[in-house]
């Protein structure tokens, strides 16, 4: 079973859910050169990301290569323990991944 690229943490606090994610992804801009070959490293970055709570989108994002490697994201939404939170992403090469967790 392939390991997820997504690390997702949720915490219920005072009527809101804190969502924190760390995603393993090179986020290559396409402008960097390989120091040994001198060739440009192709662009490879997450372009679309969405976070759903119980099937409904709470946050969607469009990213560029300007977002740091192994990107981090944090935000809050009004929710409760037991919520099913799912983060999905898609990159410019067509690769994608998603992960779901249940808020404790």
């Amino acid at each position, binding site marked *: 079973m392939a390991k997820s690229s997504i690390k997702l943490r949720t915490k219920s606090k005072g009527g809101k859910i804190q969502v924190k994610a760390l995603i393993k992804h090179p986020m290559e801009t396409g402008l960097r050169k390989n120091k040994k070959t001198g060739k440009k490293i192709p662009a490879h970055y997450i372009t679309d990301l969405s976070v759903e709570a119980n099937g409904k989108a709470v946050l969607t994002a469009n990213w560029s290569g300007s977002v*740091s490697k192994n990107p981090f994201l944090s935000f809050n939404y009004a929710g409760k323990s037991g919520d099913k939170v799912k983060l999905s992403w898609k990159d410019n090469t067509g690769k994608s991944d998603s992960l779901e967790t249940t808020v404790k």
Partner: protein
Amino acid sequence: MKRRSFLKSTVLLSATGAAVSTGILSPNVAMAAAHGNNAFKAKSVDEVLKMLGATGAATSDKIKIKAPEIAENGAVVPVSITSGIAGTTEIISITAANPTPLAAIYKFGESAETSVKSRFKMGKTTDVVVLVKAGDKFYTAKANVKVTKGGCGG
């Protein structure tokens, strides 16, 4: 308003249509390109604003940008943006000095707090220009981040 955006997407579709048929873009990515923002290709802040329809956005002190004064390392700069403007639906972050300044567009669902933290790459000292969309209007604020290079850590 609707007609303009319809025309825009038609143009995008035909350009990406060619790309799909020659196998460069997969259908999924083509869809994203058609519905997504060409503003990501813009090379200046003004161009980004123009493509987003945000030219002339009013400055607002209800937009809080938490970013370092001097970035430790331009590769990973933590930025936190909060909008206190009623009816906020989008927060947009633009790194003015980067080759393609538009960095991120965040769209908030109804239950989400209009605040988001992420980490950005900044090639050199830059303004972080933030746009907030609330209703049909755009608002703006900015913060400056100094990026240094050189020395022993650099």
